[in-house]
C-alpha cells in the first residue's frame, strides 16, 4: 500500500473519493490486505471483498473496523467469546446500520476482551492483542483490537464500546482518539450487552476531526432502544483553535495518587497548553469519584450476570453436553466463558442475591447518584473537566493478569463518567517511556460539540504526530 493512502485520515480519504481522486474499492482493498495480514491479533474476521459500488453518503466507502460485539447480519459476531464462536446474527446493530447508510464499508471485526470485560484485551477468548508501539505490551481494553488496528494503520478508523473506559483507555494506550458519547446518544440495539446502563458505542480514530465525523453518523434516537435519546444538535466538525472563555476543571480526586510521573508530566504540560490557548483552569472537587471503581464493579457485574444468562446452549452459540438440562447449562457455560467473565458473573450474582442486594447493589446505586451529583455541581463552575485518561502508559502483557484488583484500577479515571452517563474523549497528548499518553476531557450531558472543539484546539497545540512504527 502506498504510504500516501495510508497517510490519509478517514475524513481526507472520504473527501478524495467524493472528489473522484480515489476509488473506494482501491482504498478498501489496500486496508483489507493489511488487516488480513496483520500480526497484532487485532482482527477476528476480515471481509473478503469491498462493497461492489461506492456507497452513497458522506463516508464514501471508507473502510470501518467494527468491535466484535456489534452484531452484523451474517458476519461472525461473538464478543470475542468462545461461547458465541460461529454465531452469525440474523440482524445488524443500529449503529453499524447507520454508518453503512452514511457510506461506511465494514472492513472487519476487531478483537476485544471477552464480552468487553477487561482493560488489557488479554481476556479475549481468541488470544490477546499486541500494542503496536511495543508488542510486549497490552493495547488496553476492552476495545483493544479497534484501538490497535487504528494505531497500526490496519484500519482508517473503528468503532468500539465504552462501559468503564473501554474506548478511552485503549485509545490512550495506543496513541489515538477515542470518545464515549453521552449515554443514550448512540443506540445500543445490536451491541452484545455487558452492562446495559453503562454501555455506549463511540469512535476510535486517528484525529479529532475523524472522531467528530464518525460520531455524527452514529448518533440518533432508535425506536429499537428505549434508552436512546439521540443528540439535541448535529455533531459538528470542530474548527476552533483557541479556548478563550472556556473554564477547565481539574479534580484532585482523579489527578492525584496513583498517576505515573511520566503521565503526570504530560498532563501538566497539556494543562499549561490549555492556559496558553486562552482557557482558564481551576480545581473542582468530585468528592465521590474515588468510589467510582467500587460502585462500578458492583453495578456492571450485576447487570452482566443477567445479560449473560442467555448463553445457555439452547438457542445459539456453543452447546456442550447433551445429558440433562442442568449439565447442559453447566458444561456449556463452564467451557464457553473465560475466567474473568465467570468471575464477574459470580460477583454480580452475589451482589443481587437475596439479603445482599441492599448492601451491594443498592449502595452502589446510591454512590452512582452521588457521583452524578458531584459532576452536576462541578459543571456549574466549569465547562469541562480534564484528567489523564489512564494512570499509566501501556503495561506489559501478563503483568496484571494475576491481580484483578490492579487491573480494575486501570479504569479509575475513566469509570466516573459512564457512571454519570457523561461524554468524554481521550486524545493523545504526549509520550512517556516511548509510549503514548492520553488526555481526557469530560463534559456535561450532550456537550459532545464543546468537547470536540476543545479537543481539536488542544490536539493542534500539542501537535502529537505520527504513530507506532508501521509494518
Amino acid at each position, binding site marked *: 500500500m502506498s504510504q500516501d493512502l495510508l497517510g490519509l485520515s478517514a475524513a481526507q480519504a472520504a473527501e478524495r473519493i467524493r472528489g473522484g481522486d480515489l476509488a473506494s474499492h482501491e482504498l478498501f482493498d489496500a486496508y483489507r490486505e493489511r488487516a488480513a495480514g496483520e500480526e497484532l491479533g487485532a482482527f477476528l474476521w476480515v471481509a473478503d471483498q469491498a462493497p461492489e459500488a461506492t456507497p452513497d453518503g458522506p463516508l464514501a466507502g471508507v473502510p470501518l473496523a467494527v468491535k466484535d*460485539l*456489534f*452484531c452484523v447480519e451474517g458476519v461472525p*459476531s461473538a*464478543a470475542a467469546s468462545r461461547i*458465541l464462536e460461529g*454465531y452469525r*446474527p*440474523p*440482524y445488524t*446493530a443500529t449503529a453499524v446500520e447507520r454508518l453503512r447508510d452514511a457510506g461506511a464499508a465494514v472492513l472487519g471485526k476487531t478483537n476485544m476482551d471477552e464480552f468487553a470485560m477487561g482493560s488489557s484485551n488479554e481476556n479475549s477468548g481468541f488470544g490477546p492483542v499486541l500494542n503496536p508501539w511495543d508488542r510486549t505490551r497490552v493495547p488496553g481494553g476492552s476495545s483493544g483490537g479497534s484501538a490497535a488496528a487504528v494505531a497500526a494503520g490496519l484500519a482508517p478508523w473503528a468503532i468500539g464500546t465504552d462501559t468503564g473506559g473501554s474506548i478511552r483507555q485503549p485509545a490512550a494506550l495506543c496513541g489515538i482518539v477515542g470518545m464515549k458519547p453521552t449515554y443514550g446518544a448512540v443506540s*445500543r*440495539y*445490536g*451491541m*452484545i*450487552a455487558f*452492562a*446495559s*446502563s453503562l454501555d455506549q458505542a463511540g469512535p476510535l480514530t486517528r484525529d479529532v476531526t475523524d472522531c467528530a465525523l464518525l460520531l455524527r453518523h452514529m448518533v440518533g434516537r432508535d*425506536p*429499537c*432502544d*428505549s*434508552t436512546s435519546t439521540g443528540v439535541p444538535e448535529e455533531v459538528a466538525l470542530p474548527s476552533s483553535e483557541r479556548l478563550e472563555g472556556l473554564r477547565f476543571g481539574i479534580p484532585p480526586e482523579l489527578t492525584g495518587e496513583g498517576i505515573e510521573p511520566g503521565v503526570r508530566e504530560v498532563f501538566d504540560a497539556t494543562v499549561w497548553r490549555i492556559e496558553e490557548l486562552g482557557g482558564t483552569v481551576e480545581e473542582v472537587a468530585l468528592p465521590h469519584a474515588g468510589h467510582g471503581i467500587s460502585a462500578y464493579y458492583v453495578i456492571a457485574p*450485576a*447487570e452482566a*450476570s*443477567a445479560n*449473560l*444468562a*442467555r*448463553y*445457555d446452549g*439452547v*438457542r*445459539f452459540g456453543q452447546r456442550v453436553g447433551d445429558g*440433562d*438440562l442442568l449439565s447442559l*447449562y453447566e458444561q456449556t457455560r463452564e467451557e464457553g466463558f473465560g475466567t474473568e467473565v465467570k468471575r464477574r458473573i459470580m460477583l454480580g*450474582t452475589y451482589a*443481587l*442475591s*437475596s439479603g445482599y*442486594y441492599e448492601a451491594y*447493589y443498592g449502595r452502589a446505586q446510591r454512590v452512582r447518584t452521588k457521583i452524578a451529583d458531584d459532576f452536576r455541581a462541578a459543571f456549574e463552575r466549569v465547562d469541562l473537566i480534564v484528567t489523564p485518561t489512564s494512570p499509566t502508559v501501556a503495561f506489559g502483557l501478563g503483568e496484571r493478569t494475576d491481580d484483578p484488583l490492579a487491573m480494575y484500577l486501570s479504569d479509575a479515571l475513566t469509570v466516573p463518567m459512564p457512571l454519570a452517563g457523561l461524554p468524554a474523549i481521550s486524545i493523545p497528548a504526549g509520550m512517556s517511556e516511548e509510549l503514548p499518553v492520553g488526555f481526557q476531557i469530560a463534559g456535561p450531558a450532550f456537550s459532545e460539540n464543546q468537547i470536540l472543539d476543545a479537543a481539536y484546539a488542544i490536539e493542534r497545540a500539542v501537535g502529537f504526530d505520527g504513530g507506532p512504527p508501521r509494518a
Partner: protein
Amino acid sequence: MPEALAERAYEPVIGLEIHVQLKTRTKMFCGCKLSFGEEPNTRTCPVCLGHPGTLPVTNAEAVHFALMIGLALECEIAPRSIFHRKNYFYPDLPKGYQVSQYDVPLASRGRLGDVRIHRVHLEEDAAKLVHAGASGRIHSAESSVVDFNRGGTPLVEIVTEPDVRSASQAKEWLELLRSTLRRLEVSDVRMEEGSLRCDANVSIRPAGEATLGTKTELKNMNSFRFLERGVNAEIARQEETLRAGGAISQETLHYDPASGALSPLRSKEEAHDYRYLPEPDLVPLAPTEEMLERARAALPELPAQRAERLERDLGLPPDNAQRLAFRTDLGDFFEATLQAAGDGADARTISNWLTGDLVSLVGDSDPAASKLEPSALARLVGMVAQGAVAPSAAKEVLAILVADGGDPARVVEAKGLGRAGADELTRVVERAMADQADAVEKIRAGNRKAEGAIVGAVMRETKGRADGAEVIRLLRERIGE
C-alpha cells in the same frame, strides 16, 4: 385425636393470583404478532428469542390494556412504575430472566366485588415446553422441545388480597373477573387455552381467629371446576392435617385434573432466588394524563355495574340481573329485546325468557349469532302476555325461531300452535269430562288433585295450546262450582 382439635371449626383464607394474556396485536417487547396455534417457532424474532444485543421495547397497546384493567378494578395507578428482571434459568425463558414488575407495580389497591385487589402488573409470558415421555414433566422427559411462539406474549398479573373464604366464592369471583375482562375486550380469557390462569394461595385458621395460617400455593387449575375442586381438596387436606395434630408446610402444589390429586412441586422447581434487578434496558413507565384519559374513555359499563343497574332500574331479580350482566352477549340481547318490546314491556318476564329457555337453547354461544331476532322474541313474549299463545307452546315457537328465524305470529299460524279458541277448548274439556267420569266424580267429592287428569288430557289433545288456568275454570264451571 384430641377432642378440641377434632371439634374445632376452620375458616379458609384464600387469595388468588391471576395471569391474563392480553390480546394485543403484537408481543410485549417486540413486533411479533401474537400466536394462535401457528406452526411452532414461526412467530419469533431476534428480540423474543433473546439473541445477543437485542433490546425490549414496551408495547403501548399492552400498557393501555393494563391501565384499563387497573382502572376497571378501581386501582390506584402508579405515576411511575418500573420493570425488573426476574432471573432464573429455564429453557422456556430465552433471556434467562423474565421482564416483569416487582416492587412498584403499574396499579395497586383496588377492588372487584367483595374482593380487594392487591396489585396489577405487566410482564411477558414464557415460551412453551413440550416434553416427550410419560410424565409430561421436564425431569423425567426423554427429550424436550421449545416453541417460542408464546414467549413474550403480554401478561397482566392480578393479585388479590386474601379476602376469599370458600372454594365456591373463589370460583364465582373468578367468573366475575373473567366477565369483566371479557367486557373490556383485552383478553380472550379462556382458562382451557391458558389465556386466563389462576393460582390460589390457601390457608385455614380456627374460625374467628385473626392470624393467618401457613399457606400453600396451588397451581395448574385450568378450569373453573378444577379451581373449585382443587381449593376444596386443599382445604380438606389442611383440615385433616391440623386435626391430626400436624403442621402445614409452605409449599407449591400441582393440581392434577385427571386424578384431582395435589402433589408438591420438586423443591428444585421452586427454590429460586430471583435476584430481581431493575431492567436497565427499559425506561420507567409513567402514564401521562392523556394515556389515563384514553384508558378511562375506553371503559365500557362493567358487569358489576350492569348487574346493579338491571336490578335497580328494571327491578330484575338479583339472580337474573347477575346472569345477564356477567354474560355480555346475554345482557346485550336482553336489552335489545327490551327495547324492541317498547314502552310498558315486562322486563322481568323477558329476563326469565333469556336466562331460562333461551340459555337452554343456545348454551354458551351468543344468542345474537342464532337466527332469533330480539324483536321476534319481544313479540313472542307479548303474544304470551296477551294470551294469543300458551306458554308451553311458546317454548316450541322459540326453538323454531332460534333455529330458523322468522316472525313468531307466522310460526304459530304455520304450525297451528295458536292458543285453542273458546269454542274448541269447551268442546275438548267436555269430551275429556265425558271420557273420565271417575275423575269428575272425585272432583265433585272435593278432590282437587283429580283435576290434573282432566287438564292433562286437554293438553294432550291440544298439543299444549291450551292455557291450564282456563281449562280449570271451564271444568269447575261445568261441575257447578
